């Protein structure tokens, strides 16, 4: 006699699958990076309780299919070291590591590989993903967040409710510039054409600058160096049946504090405005209902934009309907 | 401490139009010049460029300047009474002592005629210095022919053959064809007693020199004048270095035994 509370099962990060009585576990891999040792746990769960297969999800987690629903408690106990290592030790508040994941609504915070490997990355994406996870998990609201090291956006931050893109303010020392023009040419070619040569030295138009840091990378003399670290926040990108669209810039040239605060505030906004008559409502659709000004007013509370920071007053989200 | 980069102001005394894009400027300047040498010419705020001295005399020098860039565009707006800044003269010119008593053939392509102009004038006034002088000059089109008046004067003093690569407009009564054709047909009675100067664009110099060698001229009797990017003119900036030589120091006039061996 199989009697399952599907709501609880799903909240525990398991899924109702097409095979009756068979579930699949979704393992969160914070920022997409983990010590290789955890793979042993994944392997053990798949082989002992699942069908021996592991699916790698788009959000950088592992989905372990073929698990009989009655095995869930056993799976959760086996999973404990993963939750301990990838969540609790990152500062995420989870009381019982043996009970599996306490929530699944707010999805795994994914991240590109960041500056631990990538030359283009402007910061440590894994670290920020950890700080965000700590701030928002566990939570049942259906929110997708991703963190990417530079405007190349390899993690597809533009497909998230909140996409965090790392920027750097390039600092120019004209005395060190030999006028080779490598930065100017490159910016025109791969970025936004924010640089031009004036009197054999480079002039940067901050309004056009993406903060990608390409000029710093291309400069042979270190005339361009890294200044302060900033972020661009793109919001409300999504796939789905109703209105797929890319996220658009909400904030740019803001610091980490502002990023974290906006994300935290967003949960208050959802709490306040979510349509509770629905089984779930994605935050993007809430913003569609309330309009951006209401969202802005809620999430920008207590935010210091700083001298460079800018917030969008109006966002033509666009996208399309099928 | 003497500063080799300091230019001095030189007043423009005369401007002569040679072609639509080439003008000759006579400057008031008291300088020691050997034909083939160059000066660094500048306008503060615009830039500086090496320009060969095309002619010189007591208290003056002349340069024939083609409008090809930022600086020369501005120079072309100057009139007598305006001035230019110059420093120099730099480089080595033509070793006239090596030409004494010889049959001298000068092959010039386009603006390459400018650095040898003073030689043509000099030998016009002192015909005994060389045994004979022949000028073979090639231009792109008849409209590009420089020093038309002087050429007419030289015709009375030296053997002069002019050719143009093409005659688009029509009506050019002279030869059409590359200068190498002139060299191939040039009567050279005593190759061993003939000395040659080749000045012009890189490709013209290369093929003309090969043609002269084919005609039996010894390599040590051929001189070329190199054109390179130069900023300082005094062997510091490095732009004109080829192999172990600096064009601004050992050149621009180089004997072919040196020039031909430079590996770039």
């Amino acid at each position, binding site marked *: 006699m199989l009697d399952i509370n599907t709501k609880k099962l799903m909240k525990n990060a398991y899924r109702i699958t097409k095979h009756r009585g068979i579930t699949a576990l979704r393992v969160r891999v914070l920022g997409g990076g983990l010590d290789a040792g955890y793979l042993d746990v994944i392997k053990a769960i798949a082989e002992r309780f699942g069908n021996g297969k592991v699916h790698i999800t788009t959000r950088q987690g592992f989905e372990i299919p073929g698990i009989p629903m009655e095995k869930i408690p056993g799976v959760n106990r086996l999973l404990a070291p993963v939750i301990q290592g990838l969540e609790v030790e990152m500062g995420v508040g989870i009381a019982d590591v043996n009970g599996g994941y306490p929530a699944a609504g707010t999805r795994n915070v994914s991240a590109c590989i960041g500056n631990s490997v990538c030359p283009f*990355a402007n910061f440590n994406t894994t670290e920020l993903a950890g700080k965000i996870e700590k701030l928002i998990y566990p939570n049942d609201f259906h929110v997708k967040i991703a963190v990417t090291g530079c405007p190349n956006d390899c993690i597809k931050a533009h497909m998230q409710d909140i996409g965090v893109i790392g920027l750097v303010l390039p600092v120019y020392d004209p005395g060190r510039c030999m006028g080779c023009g*490598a930065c100017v040419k490159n910016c025109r070619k791969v970025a936004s054409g924010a640089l031009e040569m004036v009197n054999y030295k480079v002039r940067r138009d901050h309004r056009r600058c993406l903060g990608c840091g390409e000029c710093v990378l291309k400069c042979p003399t270190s005339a361009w160096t890294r200044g302060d670290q900033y972020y661009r926040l793109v919001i409300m990108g999504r796939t789905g049946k109703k209105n797929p669209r890319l996220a658009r810039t909400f904030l740019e040239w803001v610091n980490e504090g502002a990023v974290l605060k906006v994300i935290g505030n967003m949960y208050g906004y959802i709490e306040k405005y979510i349509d509770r008559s629905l089984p779930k409502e994605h935050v993007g659709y809430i913003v569609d209902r309330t309009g951006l000004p209401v969202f802005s007013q809620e999430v920008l509370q207590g935010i210091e934009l700083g001298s460079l920071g800018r917030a969008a007053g109006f966002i033509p989200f666009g996208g399309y309907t099928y | 401490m003497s500063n*080799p980069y300091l230019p001095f102001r030189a007043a423009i005394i005369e401007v002569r139009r040679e072609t639509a894009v080439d003008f000759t400027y006579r400057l008031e300047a008291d300088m020691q010049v050997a034909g083939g040498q160059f000066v660094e010419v*500048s306008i503060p705020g615009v830039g500086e460029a090496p320009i060969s001295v095309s002619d010189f005399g007591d208290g003056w020098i002349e340069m024939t300047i083609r409008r090809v860039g930022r600086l020369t565009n501005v120079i072309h707006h100057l009139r007598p009474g305006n001035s230019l800044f110059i420093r120099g003269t730099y480089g080595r010119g033509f070793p006239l002592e090596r030409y004494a008593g010889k049959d001298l053939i000068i092959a010039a392509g386009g603006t390459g005629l400018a650095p040898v102009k003073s030689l043509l004038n000099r030998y016009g006034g002192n015909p005994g210095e060389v045994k004979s002088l022949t000028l073979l000059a090639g231009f792109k089109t008849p409209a590009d022919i420089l020093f038309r008046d002087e050429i007419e004067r030289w015709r009375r003093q030296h053997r002069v053959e002019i050719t143009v690569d093409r005659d688009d407009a029509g009506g050019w009564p002279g030869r059409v064809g590359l200068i190498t054709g002139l060299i191939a047909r040039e009567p050279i009675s005593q190759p061993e007693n003939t000395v040659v100067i080749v000045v012009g664009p890189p490709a013209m110099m290369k093929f003309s020199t090969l043609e002269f060698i084919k005609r039996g001229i010894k390599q040590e009797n051929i001189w070329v004048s190199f054109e390179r990017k130069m900023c300082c003119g005094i062997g510091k900036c490095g732009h004109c270095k080829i192999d172990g030589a600096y064009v601004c120091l050992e050149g621009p006039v180089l004997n072919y035994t040196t020039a031909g061996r430079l590996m770039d």
Partner: protein
Amino acid sequence: MAYWLDMDSFNGILKELSADNVVYAPVKMTGKGAFSGTDLVAYREISGVEQIEFKEKSRFSPKEIVFPITQTLLYFTEEEYAVPGTGEKGIIVFCRPCDVNAFKRLDEIFLRNGGRVDSYYRELREKVRFFVIECAESFDSCFCVSMGTNRADGYDVFIRAAGGGFLCDVRGDLATLFEKFGGPAEMSLRFIEENKTKVSIPESVDQSVFGHGIWREYASRCIACGRCTVSCPTCSCFTMQDIFYEDNPNRGERRRVWASCMIDGFTAMAGGHGFREDHGDRMRFKLMHKISDFRKRFGYNMCVGCGRCDDVCPEYISFARAINRVDALMKEAVENV
């Protein structure tokens, strides 16, 4: 004379010297590397010995102290021009033996080549005193021993960082100052006697190597960014630039800035014609200058084997290996004769 000084005494010396000197040393600047989370080691003015980076090789050489990346030659107005001064202070440069040898090569070009003295260079160069940092260990890319530049002469102070303090061999008039702050010590100078990287310099290079396929290979690899030449302690090419002030177009400056034979436009004449468009040709030109052309004029090689060009090449082209390849090609050519 040799002296031992702890950090405070050394800083006492620096403080006294700073009254009449500007002191430059390799400094590690946190977060200033091109990649995020990396540091930059380069020459900066210092006030204390603790600022000096003794462990890592600097990305840029000390040449920029006497041959600044951008240097104003003349200020001009409509009517006249003025030459900027360089101040009264002397210059102290902390650098390694290879870099001291590199200055000798710069001197050759700026003070002697062509018989004219570059007054701007001389004015700065005459003020320089070297405080040589002893190389305790060779870095992987160094090949100073092959180039004969592992030893340094012509210094005022030779420093070994040891036991939390500094052992210094002092020459000339600075001895009085060191005596005041330090205690007498014994010191025998140590130089690097072997590098991991070794090069063999060909006695001559002929046309057969010039036309060889390796340059086509380098052409396909080199991106002509110029990092090798910019980091090179002996590259001394520059370009002149005239600028006018935007708020007063009648006033301006004539400057010189570093130029690189690897970067587009180096040989481009007015009108656009250039001589070495191919990146492999540029690589060969640079290599020939460093190991042959300079020697033809001055009797010794230009390259000092600091290995910075290998450290900084984003395309992982090893200049040291290129030298060895050219040498091997020449040996092959000789054998085949």
